[in-house]
């Protein structure tokens, strides 16, 4: 139990180190990529290059992924400061923000679904079936 917990914490510490590396490199090189996204790219490359083994981080990563939504809740609570703005122009803002989000979702999802179906059919429809399940 204690050993398990120690391994788990060490895995999260390793992810934290990679995150810090991402933040440092991003600010040092003035990259247009936030440190967290750069850290994700770094970890991905290290996994692909087999420098980091999946089992070194898998448990910690699975836990953080599962509860990713939790970390956004305290940030969303920050909207309480803007309740007046949201009350004042709430409907107009909703039309603009939600409207453009829906358009973006439709165009992105539609483009990918149509194009990948076409590619799949070109390759004798091998993956057309596996695409339909698990929604």
């Amino acid at each position, binding site marked *: 139990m204690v050993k398990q917990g120690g391994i788990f914490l060490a895995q999260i510490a390793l992810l*934290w180190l990679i995150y810090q590396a991402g933040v440092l490199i991003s600010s040092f090189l003035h990259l247009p990529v936030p440190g967290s996204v750069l850290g994700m790219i770094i970890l991905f490359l290290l996994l692909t290059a087999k420098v980091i083994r*999946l089992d070194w981080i898998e448990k910690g990563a699975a836990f953080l992924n*599962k509860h*990713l939504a939790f970390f*956004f809740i305290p*940030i969303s609570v920050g909207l309480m400061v803007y309740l007046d703005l949201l009350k004042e122009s709430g409907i107009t803002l909703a039309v603009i923000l939600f409207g453009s989000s829906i358009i*973006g979702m439709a165009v*992105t999802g539609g*483009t990918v679904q149509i194009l990948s179906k076409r*590619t799949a059919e070109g390759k004798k429809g091998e993956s057309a079936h596996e695409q339909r399940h698990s929604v």
Partner: protein
Amino acid sequence: MSSVTLFSILLTVAVYWVSRRLAIRFPSPLLTPVFSSTVVIVFILLWSGITYEEYTPAKDIMTYLLGPATVALAVPLYHNLNILLKKAWPSLLGLVAGTAATIVSGVVLAKLFHFSEEMTGAIAVKSVTSPVAFDVANVIGGDPVLAAVFVIISGVFGAVAGPWVLTALRITDPFARGLSIGTTAHGVGTSQMVVEGEMQGAVSGAAMGAAAILVSIILPWLFPLIQ
């Protein structure tokens, strides 16, 4: 640690825990944890007279692992590398078309309602992760604080309504769903895609990163053109 901070942390964790159980038991867009928890916590804070300023130390402690949690999205990405490589071209085209559609439609709608340039600029960056939105808003003359607000609203909207919108539009391919939500609703949308399925989460995380890079490169020259 002050008692307000301790209370805020316990409250947030407890509300999240209950909202997660509820969402598993009764799957419904309005029970999406990031939305339902936020509403309940804001209500309790207002009711108990705690300001966001007093809540902020708790927020800083609780978001400490957001960075590492974003880094951890590399794992599902690694698991799904083959399919991502196979669909590299459709993905890239979808990403570019969708990002452009989100920006142009947001700016056109904002112009239609006679919004100021600071407001329009903040709307243009709303679909990307907040540090990038903040920086790019500054570059194009948008209000960075409003940008952060619109980023959160768009993210929560993507998490709550996104899956439903996609199903209504018959976008059922898990790969397309993940890419669509990651492109338009960054990390918050991704947190919901992770729950929907591993592939959706993986693609959404990758799309979030790619969209952040794309927007920071194209928006500074695209924005003056559509202004």
